[in-house]
C-alpha cells in the first residue's frame, strides 16, 4: 500500500492526500475519534487502465452466485462507464484487501459499501481534474459511457482516460472495520440507491459464458512448471493415527514416491493417474479408532445424554410461569449432512525458499494465507494465495484440505504439487453440518402463543474454525501434528434466533455438545450453507406450524398474527398470493392425486440478518411407500435493493433445490467407527427427476433499501415448508429429517391417522 499520507497529531486529525496535478484532497475525521488503524489506496480497490478498462479488486470471489458481477454493476454505475469495461480481479492475497472473503451472506450486504465508495471517489477525482482542464465547475459536468460532457456546450468533451494522471499518485484513505465490515472512508458520496440504473439490471454474469464454453479458469487446471500430482491418505476410522508407512508398497507405480511427515502420509507422481493408484496401493498402519460411535438410529438419544454447554439465545418474559400444565410438546431431529462438493476439492501449492504460492478455490483467501503460514511455520508475508475457482462451496466446506496437503507435499519434494481430493475424501472425510436435536414446548391460548420454549442440541463445531486460518483445523495439519487450537463454538448462535415472532414468553436455548474426538474425525462439524439455519428452521418452523394447528388456524394467518415488521408480513402475503394459498387450517382438506398421492401444502418463514424469506411447498405423499414428491416450491424473497434480478433468481432457485435435497434426501450415515456415506450413491442428493413441476421466485422490490444477503436465506424455510405440507397431506408430523420414505413411513405408522 502507498504511504503518501500525513497524520497530524493534536485535536484535528487529518489525512492529506496528494492528488491531481498537485491538487490536494484532505480528509478529516472527528477529533474525538481514534485515528484509523489502517490506510488503503484507491488502487487497492479500483484501477483505471489507459484503454478505459476498470480493474476491480476484491476478495469477494465468485462462488457461483454472481456477487462480483453485482459489484461490477455498482462500479460501472458510479463511474458511468460501460459495465463491460469493469473487470473483476478476484481473491489474490497479493493485490486485494482482506475483507473477510465470502461467507455468511455478507458479500453484497456488507461488501457493497467499500466498492461503491471507491468508485464514487474515483469518479470525483477524475471529474475534478476534468473540470480543471475544461475550465468549468464540476457541477456542470456529466458522464455518459466514460465520456465527460459539459452542460450547454457540446463542443467540450473529455474521456476519463484523458485525465488518468489525476489518479497518480494513488490516493490514500482510511480503512475502517474488520472482516466483512471493512470499508473505506472517502469524501465522495455514492449515488442514492434509487438512482442506480446499471446496478439493478439483469446484466450477464461475467462468469457465465466462459463456463458454458469451457473456457472459465478452474483451479483443477492450474499447472505451474515442474508440477507433480499428490494425494494423501485418510485414516481408516475416527481418531485413528498413523503408526507406520510401507514406502515400498508404491514401488513400480510410475515414478510415485512417498512423503511421510509425522502422522501425515502422502504420495507424489508426475502423472495424476499414478498418484491416484499409488495412494490406493500405499500400505499404512493406524492405531485403532479413538472412540466407538453411537448407533446412528440412537444419535439423538446419545446427544441428549451428553454434557452440554447451554446458551440462551433468546429470552423474553417468563416461560416457566406461562407454559401451562399441559403444554404442547414435540421433539425433532436433523442429521449430520455432508458438504459433498461437486468437485471434491483441489489446490496447487508451490513452496519455495523465497516464498509460497497456493492456488485454491477457498472462499477466504486471506484467512487461508494465515493458515498456510502457520502450517509451514513461515511469516504470512511469505505466502500468497491466488483464488482460482473450484467447485461450489457453501461455507467451511473443506476445499482447503487439499491446500494443506499440497503445501506439506510441495515442501517435502521441492516441486509445485497439485492435490485433488477423491470423492470419498470429500463426502466421507470432509466437514459436516452438525446434527441437531430439538425439544420444544408451547402454550397456545385463544389463537395466540402465550409461551414458547425451544432447546436445540447440536455439536459445537469447535474442531473446524470458520476461517481456514488455523493449521490444526485442517485434517492434514492435525495429522502432521498441529494442535487444533481455534476452539471457537461455531454453532448455537445463529439459527436459533431466527424466529422473529412476537411471543410474550419466549426462550430459545442452544445446548452445545462436544465433538466425538478433537482430531482426525470424519464427523467434524463446520458451517454449511447458513451455518445451521436449515436445521434450526426445520425444527422451529415445524413446531410453529404445530401450534397453528392446535390453535385451529391457517398457518399463514397464524404466523402473521405473531409478526410485527411490515416486511415480514408482506413476504407471507406475497407467498400466499403467488402460491394460490387456500386459507384454512392445515390437515383439514383431503386431496388425492391421480396416482393415489396425498397432496398438501405447507409454509415456512425465516429471516437471516435483514433478509426475509417465506416459502410454500406443495407435496405429494405416497402413503404406501412413504415417498415424498415436491410438486411446487414458491418463495417470496425480500433482500432489499436487488443488484441483479436474473442472478438473484438463479441463486434463489438453486437455494430452493439444494435445500429441498437436504430436506428429503441428505443424511451422513456412519457405523461404529467411520462415516459410510462416501459417494453419490451412499450420500444421495436430489436429481433431475426430483425437480418440482413449478419453482416460482417472487423477488420483492425495495429500490430504496440497502441490499441484504441472498446466498443463504432461502435455504432456511424449505425443509419446514415440506414437512408442514406433509402434515397437510397426511395429518402426520414428520419430525425427523431427512423426509425419506423410511422416516415418513415411520411417522405414518406411529401417528397412524391415515384413512
Amino acid at each position, binding site marked *: 500500500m502507498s504511504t503518501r499520507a500525513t497524520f497530524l497529531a493534536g485535536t484535528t486529525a487529518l489525512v492529506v492526500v496528494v492528488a491531481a496535478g498537485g491538487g490536494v484532497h484532505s480528509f478529516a475525521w472527528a477529533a474525538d475519534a481514534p485515528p484509523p488503524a489502517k490506510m488503503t489506496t484507491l488502487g487497492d480497490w479500483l484501477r483505471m487502465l489507459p484503454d478505459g478498462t476498470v480493474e476491480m479488486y476484491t476478495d469477494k470471489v465468485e*462462488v*457461483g*452466485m*454472481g456477487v462480483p458481477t453485482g459489484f461490477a454493476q455498482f462500479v460501472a454505475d458510479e463511474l458511468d462507464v460501460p459495465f463491460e469495461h469493469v473487470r473483476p480481479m478476484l481473491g489474490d492475497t497479493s493485490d486485494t484487501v482482506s475483507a473477510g472473503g465470502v461467507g455468511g451472506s455478507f458479500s453484497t450486504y456488507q461488501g457493497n459499501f467499500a466498492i461503491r465508495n471507491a468508485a464514487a471517489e474515483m469518479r470525483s477525482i477524475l471529474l475534478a481534474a476534468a473540470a480543471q482542464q475544461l475550465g468549468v465547475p464540476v457541477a456542470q459536468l456529466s458522464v455518459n459511457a466514460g465520456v465527460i460532457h459539459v452542460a450547454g456546450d457540446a463542443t467540450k468533451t473529455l474521456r476519463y482516460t484523458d485525465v488518468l494522471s489525476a489518479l497518480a499518485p494513488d490516493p490514500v484513505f482510511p480503512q475502517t472495520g474488520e472482516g466483512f465490515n471493512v470499508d473505506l472512508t472517502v469524501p465522495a458520496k455514492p449515488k442514492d440507491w434509487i438512482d442506480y440504473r446499471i446496478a439493478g439490471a439483469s446484466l*450477464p*454474469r461475467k*462468469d*457465465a*459464458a466462459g*463456463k*458454458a*464454453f*469451457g*473456457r*472459465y479458469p*478452474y483451479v*483443477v*487446471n492450474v*499447472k505451474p512448471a515442474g508440477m507433480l500430482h499428490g494425494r494423501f491418505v485418510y485414516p481408516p476410522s475416527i481418531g485413528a493415527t498413523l503408526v507406520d508407512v510401507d514406502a515400498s508398497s508404491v514401488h513400480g507405480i510410475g515414478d510415485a514416491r512417498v512423503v511421510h511427515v509425522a502422522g501425515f502420509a502422502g504420495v507424489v507422481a508426475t*502423472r*495424476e*493417474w499414478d498418484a*491416484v493408484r499409488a495412494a490406493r496401493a500405499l500400505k499404512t498402519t493406524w492405531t485403532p479408532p479413538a472412540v466407538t460411535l453411537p448407533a446412528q438410529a440412537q444419535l439423538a438419544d446419545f446427544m441428549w445424554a451428553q454434557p452440554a454447554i447451554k446458551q440462551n439465545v433468546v429470552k423474553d418474559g417468563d416461560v416457566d410461569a406461562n407454559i401451562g400444565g399441559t403444554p404442547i410438546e414435540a421433539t425433532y431431529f436433523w442429521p449430520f449432512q455432508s458438504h*459433498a*462438493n*461437486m*468437485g*471434491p476439492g483441489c489446490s496447487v501449492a508451490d513452496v519455495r525458499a523465497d516464498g509460497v504460492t497456493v492456488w485454491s478455490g477457498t472462499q477466504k483467501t486471506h484467512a487461508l494465507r494465515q493458515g498456510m503460514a502457520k502450517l509451514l511455520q513461515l511469516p504470512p508475508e511469505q505466502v500468497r494465495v491466488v483464488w482460482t*475457482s*473450484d*467447485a*461450489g*462451496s457453501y461455507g467451511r466446506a473443506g476445499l482447503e484440505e487439499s491446500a494443506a496437503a499440497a503445501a506439506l507435499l510441495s515442501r517435502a519434494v521441492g516441486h509445485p504439487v497439485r492435490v*485433488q481430493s*477423491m*470423492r470419498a475424501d470429500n463426502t466421507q472425510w470432509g466437514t459436516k453440518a452438525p446434527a441437531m436435536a430439538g425439544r420444544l414446548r408451547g402454550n397456545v391460548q385463544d389463537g395466540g402463543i402465550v409461551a414458547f420454549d425451544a432447546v436445540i442440541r447440536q455439536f459445537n463445531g469447535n474442531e473446524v474454525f470458520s476461517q481456514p486460518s488455523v493449521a490444526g483445523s485442517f485434517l492434514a495439519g492435525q495429522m502432521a501434528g498441529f494442535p487444533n487450537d481455534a476452539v471457537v463454538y461455531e454453532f448455537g448462535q445463529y439459527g436459533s434466533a431466527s424466529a422473529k415472532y412476537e411471543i410474550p414468553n419466549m426462550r430459545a436455548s442452544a445446548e452445545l455438545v462436544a465433538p466425538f474426538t478433537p482430531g482426525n474425525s470424519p464427523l467434524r462439524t463446520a458451517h454449511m450453507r447458513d451455518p445451521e439455519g436449515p436445521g434450526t428452521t426445520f425444527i422451529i418452523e415445524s413446531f410453529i406450524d404445530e401450534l397453528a394447528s392446535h390453535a385451529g388456524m391457517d398457518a399463514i394467518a397464524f404466523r402473521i398474527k405473531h409478526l410485527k415488521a411490515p416486511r415480514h408480513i408482506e413476504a407471507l402475503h406475497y407467498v400466499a398470493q403467488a402460491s394460490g394459498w387456500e386459507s384454512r387450517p392445515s390437515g383439514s382438506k383431503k386431496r388425492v392425486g391421480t396416482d393415489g398421492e396425498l397432496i398438501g401444502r405447507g409454509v415456512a418463514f425465516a429471516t437471516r440478518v435483514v433478509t426475509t424469506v417465506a416459502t410454500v411447498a406443495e407435496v405429494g405423499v405416497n402413503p404406501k411407500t412413504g415417498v415424498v414428491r415436491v410438486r411446487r416450491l414458491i418463495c417470496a424473497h425480500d433482500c432489499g435493493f436487488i443488484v441483479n434480478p*436474473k*442472478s438473484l433468481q*438463479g*441463486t434463489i*432457485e*438453486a*437455494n*430452493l*433445490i*439444494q*435445500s*429441498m*435435497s437436504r430436506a428429503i434426501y441428505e443424511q451422513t450415515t456412519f457405523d461404529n467407527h467411520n462415516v459410510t456415506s462416501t*459417494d*453419490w*450413491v451412499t450420500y444421495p*442428493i*436430489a*436429481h*433431475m*427427476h426430483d*425437480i418440482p413441476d413449478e*419453482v416460482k421466485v417472487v423477488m420483492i422490490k425495495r429500490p430504496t433499501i440497502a441490499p441484504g444477503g441472498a446466498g443463504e436465506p432461502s435455504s432456511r424455510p424449505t425443509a419446514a415448508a415440506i414437512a408442514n405440507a406433509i402434515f397437510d397431506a397426511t395429518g402426520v408430523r414428520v419430525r425427523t429429517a431427512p423426509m425419506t420414505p423410511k422416516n415418513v413411513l415411520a411417522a405414518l405408522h406411529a401417528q397412524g391417522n391415515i384413512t
Partner: protein
Amino acid sequence: MDKTIRLRVDGHAHEVHADPETPLLYALRDNLALENPRFGCGLAQCGACTVHVDGKATRSCVTPVSFAEGRAVTTLAGLGTPQHPHPLQTAFAEEQAMQCGYCLNGWIMTAAELLAREKKPSRARIKEALGSLVCRCGSHVAILRAVERAAKEMTA
C-alpha cells in the same frame, strides 16, 4: 505398461503414451492438457468428466483411454466456440444455467447427445435423459430452461 494410443480429440489428432487402462479423463487432462472434462467422482456417478465418444456422452473417468482409440472424442470446448457456438452453449450462457459450473460438461454434453437424436423432447424426456447427472448447487431449474431454449432454437 505404456503404449502409444492414437486419439482424435476436438478434431485434432494426438498420440498419447499411457497405460491402456488409464481412464480417458486422465489421458485428456494430463497427456493432452485438455482442461475441460473434470474429475467429480471417478465412479461414473456425476458426469463432470463427460465427453462425447463418437457422439455418445461418455463418462471419461471410468472409460479406458484404449476405448477411445480410433474414435472421435469431443470435449465441451470442442462442441462449439464463442464464434461458432453450439445452441446449448448459447442457451446455458443466456440462461446462466449454472452456479459454480463445475458440473457443466455433464449437462451440456449429455443434452447435446439428446438434442442430436430427438427434436423437441418433452420436459419429462429431458428430465429422464439428464437423470443421472449431479449438480450440487441445484441449478436444475435454470438447466431445464436452457435445454428447452436450445431445443426450440435448434428446431426453429
